[in-house]
C-alpha cells in the first residue's frame, strides 16, 4: 500500500514537471521563430527601398510589418520572463535552464537584427522618396500638356531668337569698346617706348659727362704736381741767390784791403 502510494506520487510530480517545461519553452521558441520570419520579411522590404519598386504601398506594408514584429517581440519577451521565473522557483532540471538560456540568447540576437533593419529602413526612407507611377496622374493633365507643348516651344524659340539678337548687338558693342581701348593702350605703349628712349639718351649723356669730369680731375692733379715741383725749384733758387750775395760782399772787402796795401807801398 505504501509502496504503491509512493509510486503514484512520483508519477504525478513527473507529469507536472514535463508539462510545464514543454509549454513555456515551446512558446518562447515559437515566438522567436515568428520574429525571425518577420525580420526576414522586413529586411526584404527594406532592400526594396530606393528601387523602382519603392511605392507608397510598399512603405505602408513596411510600417505594418514593423508593428507586427513589435507585437511579437512584446509577447515573446513576456513569455521568456515567465519561463525564467519558473526556472528560479523550481530550480529542478539543469537541462531546462540551459535550454531557456539558449532561447534568451537567440532572442537577443533576433532583437539586434531587428534594430539594424530598422536603422537601415529609417535611413533609406529619409534618403529616397517613393516612386509615383505615371498612371497615377489624371489623363486630362497629360493631354493638356501635350496640347500646350508646341505653342510653348514656338514662344521659347522666338524669345531665344530675340535674346540672341540682343546678345549679338551687345557683343558687337563690346568689341568696338575693346578695340578703342586697345588702340589707346597701343598709344600708351608707344609713348612709354619713347620715354624709354629718352631715358637711354640721358644715360649716354650722363656717362659721357662722367668721362669728361674724370679728365678734368686728371688735369687738375697734373697741375697740382707740376706746381709743387715748380715751388721746390723756386725755393732752391732763393737759397742760391742768398749764398751768392754773401760771396760778393766778401770779395769786395778783400779787394778793398788789397787796394789799401798797394796805396801804402806806393806812398812809402
Amino acid at each position, binding site marked *: 500500500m505504501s509502496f504503491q502510494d509512493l509510486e503514484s506520487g512520483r508519477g504525478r510530480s513527473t507529469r507536472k514537471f514535463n508539462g510545464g517545461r514543454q509549454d513555456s519553452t515551446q512558446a518562447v521558441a515559437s515566438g522567436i521563430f515568428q520574429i525571425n520570419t518577420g525580420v526576414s520579411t522586413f529586411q526584404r522590404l527594406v532592400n526594396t527601398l530606393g528601387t523602382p519598386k519603392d511605392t507608397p504601398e510598399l512603405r505602408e506594408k513596411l510600417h505594418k510589418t514593423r508593428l507586427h514584429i513589435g507585437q511579437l517581440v512584446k509577447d515573446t519577451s513576456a513569455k521568456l520572463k515567465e519561463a525564467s521565473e519558473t526556472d528560479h522557483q523550481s530550480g529542478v532540471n539543469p537541462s531546462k535552464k540551459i535550454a531557456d538560456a539558449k532561447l534568451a540568447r537567440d532572442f537577443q540576437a533576433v532583437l539586434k537584427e531587428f534594430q539594424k533593419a530598422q536603422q537601415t529602413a529609417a535611413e533609406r526612407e529619409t534618403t529616397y522618396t517613393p516612386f509615383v507611377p505615371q498612371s497615377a496622374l489624371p489623363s486630362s493633365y497629360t493631354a493638356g500638356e501635350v496640347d500646350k507643348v508646341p505653342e510653348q516651344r514656338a514662344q521659347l524659340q522666338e524669345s531665344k531668337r530675340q535674346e540672341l539678337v*540682343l546678345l549679338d*548687338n*551687345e557683343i558687337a*558693342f563690346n568689341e*568696338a*569698346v575693346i578695340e*578703342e*581701348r586697345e588702340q*589707346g*593702350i597701343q*598709344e*600708351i605703349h608707344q*609713348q*612709354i617706348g*619713347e*620715354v624709354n628712349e*629718352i*631715358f637711354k*639718351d*640721358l644715360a649716354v*649723356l*650722363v656717362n*659721357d*659727362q662722367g668721362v*669728361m*669730369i674724370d*679728365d*678734368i680731375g686728371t*688735369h*687738375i692733379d*697734373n*697741375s*697740382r*704736381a*707740376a*706746381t709743387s*715741383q*715748380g715751388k721746390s*725749384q*723756386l725755393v*732752391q*733758387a732763393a737759397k*742760391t*741767390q742768398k749764398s*751768392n750775395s754773401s760771396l760778393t760782399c766778401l770779395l769786395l772787402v778783400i779787394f778793398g784791403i788789397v787796394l789799401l796795401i798797394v796805396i801804402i807801398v806806393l806812398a812809402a
Partner: protein
Amino acid sequence: MKITALLVLKCDPETREPVILANVSDLSQFGKFSFYRSNFEEFIVFIARTVARRTPPGQRQSVKHEEYKVHAYNINGLCAVGFMDDHYPVRSAFSLLNQVLDVYQKDYGDTWRFENSSQPWPYLKEASDKFRDPAEADKLLKIQRELDETKIILHKTIDGVLARGEKLDSLVEKSSELSLASKMFYKQAKKTNSCCTLL
C-alpha cells in the same frame, strides 16, 4: 574742349517721340536775354530727340551737326546724349555718357519707364562741370597726358644735361691749359736754377 549740353531721354519703341527726362545746357556763349538763347535750347532739344530716336538699344552713335559733335548711347531704352565740340575725344564722351546712365539708374531705379516729363537732376550739372576736362572721364587719356608731361620734363632734363656737358667741355679745356702752364712754370724754374748753379 567743351560740353555744350547733356540730356537723358527715354526711347520707347511704342512712342515715336523720345521723352526728355533730364537735361542741362551751357549757354554762356549767349547773353542772358539774347534772342538766340531760346532758339538754341529748341535746337538742342530737337537734335537730341532726333539722334536718340535713331539710336537703337545697346548702340552708340556719333553725329556731326554744324560745329557740334552729338554723341548718343542707348541702354535698354534709356538714352544719354551729349553735345561736345570736335576736340573732345570720342572715348571720353562715351565714358561720360556711360557714367551718366549708371548714376541715373542708381538714383532713380526703373521709375524712368513710367516717367513722361522732364525732372531737374543736379548730377547732370555736376557731370558737365567735372568732365569738362576729358581726362576725368577716360583713364587712358589721363595716362597719356601724364606720359606727355613726363616726356616734356625729360626733354628739359636732356637740355639741362647738354648745357652741363658744354660747361664740362670748357672746364676740361681750362684744366688742360692749367696743367700745361704748371709744367712750363716748373721747367722755367728748373732751368733758371741750373743756370745759377753753374755760375
